[in-house]
């Protein structure tokens, strides 16, 4: 509390408030435009934050995260396209309801659900993070290693599409991260005698290529994609008390599912929406109505994906492990600002740690206001031609890739990963596990090897230290999760729209 209240007050001072305003607005608009996603715009923003104050940079990025996750519901409802991958499940019921002549009602439910999910999960973020960081300070190399292993298993096991392809993508990311200087010993490896490769494949060129450029190439191929329009009227956007009374159990349950899936490292909004939608259908007395435009479906999906945003911030600020692909970018921002992500963030730079928490709260409230007032305008912006958007996005990718090391070499790397990412999407290999593997593998490797240095080359403490052992058990269980889940029927998401 002693830090949280001043941090919230700080968001209302001019510069942070401007960042929050900009971030949320841009996030919502970008989230609503199909072909642009939250991950893209946050990746493109990362190089711009080089010379910002660290708290401002994080508030900007967190606001974009909140905004883009919510904005996706507008295009999902009105265009039958997920503006951002996390809005995938919202299409199933949002679009039919809108087509039935109730677009305002569908949007209203979505917006209210997003807001509620954000608020409930924010409580967890604010209440859970400081004590968790307190405990995590005691975590040694083996604990962190086992935890990272859970994250690596989760992302490949739960990623959309086939598990083998998820793992394949993850291991490719791992291998790509190994090029350059070995973080444990300083030795050079996998450089194939190319001096420029001694820096390794850096964060920005890799991420911009994999997450942004690949998508842009896909957008160019699909430039003829027709856009469905729904007759738009925005009456009755507010949920009535009666609606709320009917939905509150759904909201609460979906918030909890969303927060929990968000907290699990490596997976985020899309998985949360799928899980919560499935659960809502299983609990429903009228499961056959799901997919035909039921309010329960919209509420379940939208509550959960926003809840996952705050949930995913928990491992990021307490452990330095990204809770979702977008959190990888926030992690990058922390590192670029010379902050050490992990439990000591609360002690070393409380203004940043609490700044993130406060930013998430204020952005969520502002998102609600802006969505209620601005949706009619955004609904028009969504139809802007992609031909105008694509070239500037590529130019921003170039600047971003160049800015990290002042080398055109990195720009070529960005393009190469863009083509690779596009080919992977064509082969229905999700790119999410790649990014997570790329980020987590160096952490896992250094921690394991540091652990060996601490415990005199013995692996045994991995099993005898309780926290580490518990995480290892979870990691193994996670690997077998898909086989357990196979018997259950779950609505499958198209593989190219994997988790973000």
């Amino acid at each position, binding site marked *: 509390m002693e830090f949280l209240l001043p941090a919230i007050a700080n968001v209302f001072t001019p510069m942070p408030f401007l960042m929050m305003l900009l971030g949320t607005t841009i996030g919502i608009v970008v989230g609503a435009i199909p072909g642009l996603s939250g991950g893209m715009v946050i990746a493109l923003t990362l190089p711009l934050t080089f*010379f910002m104050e660290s708290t401002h940079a994080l508030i900007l990025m967190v606001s974009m995260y909140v905004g883009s996750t919510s904005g996706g519901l507008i295009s999902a409802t009105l265009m039958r396209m997920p503006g951002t991958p996390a809005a995938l499940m919202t299409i199933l019921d949002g679009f039919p309801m809108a087509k039935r002549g109730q677009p305002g009602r569908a949007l209203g439910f979505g917006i209210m659900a997003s807001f509620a999910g954000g608020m409930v999960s924010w409580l967890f973020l604010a209440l859970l993070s400081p004590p968790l960081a307190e405990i995590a300070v005691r975590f*040694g*190399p083996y604990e962190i290693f086992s935890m990272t292993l859970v994250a690596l298993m989760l992302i490949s096991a739960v990623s959309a599409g086939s598990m083998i392809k998820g793992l394949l993508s993850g291991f490719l990311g791992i291998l790509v991260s190994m090029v350059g200087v070995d*973080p444990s*010993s300083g030795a050079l490896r996998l450089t194939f005698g190319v001096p420029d490769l001694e*820096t390794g494949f850096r964060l920005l060129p890799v991420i911009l290529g994999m997450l942004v450029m690949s998508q842009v190439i896909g957008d160019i191929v699909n430039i003829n994609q027709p856009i469905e329009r729904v007759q738009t009227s925005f009456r009755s956007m507010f949920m009535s008390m009666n609606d709320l009374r009917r939905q509150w159990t759904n909201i609460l349950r979906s918030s909890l599912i969303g927060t929990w899936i968000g907290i699990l490292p490596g997976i985020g909004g899309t998985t949360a929406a799928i899980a919560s939608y499935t659960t809502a259908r299983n609990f429903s007395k009228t499961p056959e109505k799901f997919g035909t435009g039921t309010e329960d479906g919209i509420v379940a999906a939208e509550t959960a994906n926003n809840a996952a945003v705050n949930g995913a911030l928990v491992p990021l600020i307490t452990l330095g492990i990204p809770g979702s692909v977008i959190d990888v970018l926030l992690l990058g921002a922390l590192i670029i600002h010379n902050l050490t992500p992990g439990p000591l963030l609360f002690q070393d730079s409380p203004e940043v740690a609490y700044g993130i928490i406060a930013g998430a709260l204020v952005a969520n409230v502002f998102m609600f206001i802006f969505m209620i007032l601005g949706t009619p305008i955004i609904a028009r912006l969504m139809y802007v031609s992609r031909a105008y958007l694509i070239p500037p996005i590529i130019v921003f990718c170039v600047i971003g890739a160049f800015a990290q*090391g002042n080398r055109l070499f990195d720009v070529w790397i960005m393009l190469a990963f863009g083509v690779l990412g596009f080919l992977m999407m064509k082969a229905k290999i999700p790119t999410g596990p790649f990014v997570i593997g790329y980020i987590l593998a160096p952490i896992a490797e*250094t921690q394991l090897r540091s652990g060996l*240095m601490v415990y005199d080359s013995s692996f045994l403490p991995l099993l005898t230290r309780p926290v580490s052992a518990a995480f290892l058990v979870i990691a193994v269980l996670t690997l077998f999760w898909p086989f357990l889940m196979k018997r259950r029927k779950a609505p499958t998401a198209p593989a190219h729209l994997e988790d973000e």
Partner: protein
Amino acid sequence: MKLMRLAAFAAALPIVFGAASAALADYPEKPIKLIIPYRAGGGSDSLARTMQAAIEKHKLLPVPLVVTNIDGAGGAIAARRVKDTKPDGYTFLQIHNGLFSMVATNKLGFDLSELKPVAMTTQSCIYVAVPSTMPWKSFEDLVADAKANPGKFKASDNIGGITHFSWLQIMKATGTEIGMVQAGGTAKRFAQMKGGHTHMAQMSPGWIKRGGDELRGLLWLGPERDPAAPDMPTALEKGIDVTSCLNRRFWAPKDTPQEAVDYFANLLKQAMATEEMKAYHKKTGSHIVIKTGAENEKAIEKEVAGFRAVAPMVLKAMGIN
């Protein structure tokens, strides 16, 4: 009134000197590039950017000084780039003695003679710290305990970095065996010690204040005691012939004209005399130590020899034989 005029005169002085040396030749007539081999926001970068602002404010240079970050491979990428640029006096490199650790472990990829030393400006010495939960009150306590239990105690370190070299020198001089544990930068070393997984680490002087009562400094590795921690004895006092400091130097491509090198060295001296740079060094716990010409070259030779002496052990730790 008089006082103000005096102040204005004092501020104008460096301009006069700057102009005088520039008049010797046409140099410099275009922007001078200063390459920083580490990413924006780090220690090397903040020194360069503070200096750039000071030079601009006091108009010490008639042309712009452009700071460019080219990070990667511990600085090797930038060093190679500078080595290969045209030696026209418009490109300089700022790098600390991590450069010598790369020389000693053959990671640089070229001979150090390919670069021309310009000047050393900044020294920031390192000290051995232990968590305050450890019972050791002096470095002798630590050595006695470590001798009784070889290999039992661990130090958080950055394997292959300059502190790794100084640990090996300390172990050699005291006849102890301390286990190295990879942590990374000083913040990560602090985190590892705080978690109770390791027992000591070499820290940068900023941690004397930042570490508060959670850290206890036992041994100062600078050539003499530091005003920031006057009670901390130096290794030399204890008869351990080890010094370890982060020495920041400026370099140019080998064939850069001597005139340009002297001009830039002089510019650095003027910049270090500004209030801004004094404040910067005070804030970071480092000191302005200017060495140029033969004095600088001699110091470089000595440092490189120190790194070379323990390099085989570092290479073994890196898995290179």
